[in-house]
């Protein structure tokens, strides 16, 4: 891991408004889904979205990696054997 030149307060000062804007986008999209006709409550993608939001709150985790894995298909180590490759 490389040393990070900026301090945490410097990063927060620089990125705060961008983070705020991204959270607002998420909030507005979730509102839009609720306002619209029909329901997506049982859509598995909604579950992924809520799991993703929960992952953001984890401390000490690699959040970006965890969110990526949440939105990934499972990997079967025995795939070559199954396909006889």
């Amino acid at each position, binding site marked *: *891991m490389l040393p990070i030149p900026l301090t945490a307060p410097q990063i927060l000062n620089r990125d705060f408004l961008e983070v705020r804007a991204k959270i607002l986008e998420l909030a507005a999209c979730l509102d839009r889904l609720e306002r619209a006709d029909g329901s997506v409550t049982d859509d598995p993608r909604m579950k992924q979205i809520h799991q993703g939001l929960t992952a953001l709150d984890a401390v000490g985790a690699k959040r970006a990696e965890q969110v990526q894995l949440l*939105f990934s298909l499972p990997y079967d180590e025995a795939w070559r054997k199954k396909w006889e490759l």
Partner: protein
Amino acid sequence: MYYIDPHIHMVSRTTDDYETLAKMGCVAMSEPAFWAGYDRGSVDGFRDYFRQLTSFEPKRAGWYHLQHFTWMCINAKEAENVKLSREVIAMMPEFLDMPGVLGVGEIGLNKNTKNESIVFLEHLDLAAKRGEQILIHTPHLEDKFKGTSMIVDMLCDDRRLQHDRVLVDHVEEHTVRMVLEEGFWAGMTLYPVSKCTPERAVDMVELYGPERLMVNSAGDWGPSKPTAVPDFIMAMRRRGHPESLIRKIVYDNPVEFFSQSRNFNFTPPEGMPVAAMK
């Protein structure tokens, strides 16, 4: 800052883009063979495409003093047609010794199917027999982790391959570690929407260090930005990283990786040390 874009599809771009890239500091690019937006109907369709990659694109690049390099293959999407793929693989040696051809690529997986895997393995066999370098496409979005894992499996199972002569592209936070830990090179591809951003690419540099790591634009016919590498350079500067570190990722690393190919006859721009080349 001078830089090299190690993965950009210039056949899809205008001549004006070549000029813009040159003005932004680009001195060379490597262009893997890829999907044209439609499935080609015959091996001759690929032969014509390979002629374009090896003759006209270097000429267009040269108008702006850019050096153009390329790679040969049938891409993962068209690899679903195994019969045609085998015809293309049999034809590829016509081009692999040409000036500027760096090796076999971008091979890989798209939907992680059995046919794609069969054709990927046959490309690996050709590369191993001829001692070619390899450039690899990994699938996007939900297929990426599974597909990259399958690709790493196949690469590691072939004992003939030198891992430091293989570049695995489009890595993201959940795939970069497995690629670097096995000794391969990794490429981070920057897109304007939905995939890796310059800021996240800088995060990965900070997490994993600059060794065997590159950044590219993949500029193609879809939504993409051919000047994404300068965006990365700016993001690195704004985060306070030194010029030497930035140059290693955008210039020294591509030169080091490509120098392993017999057809990489690169002329460094004036003022750049030849020592950057191995």
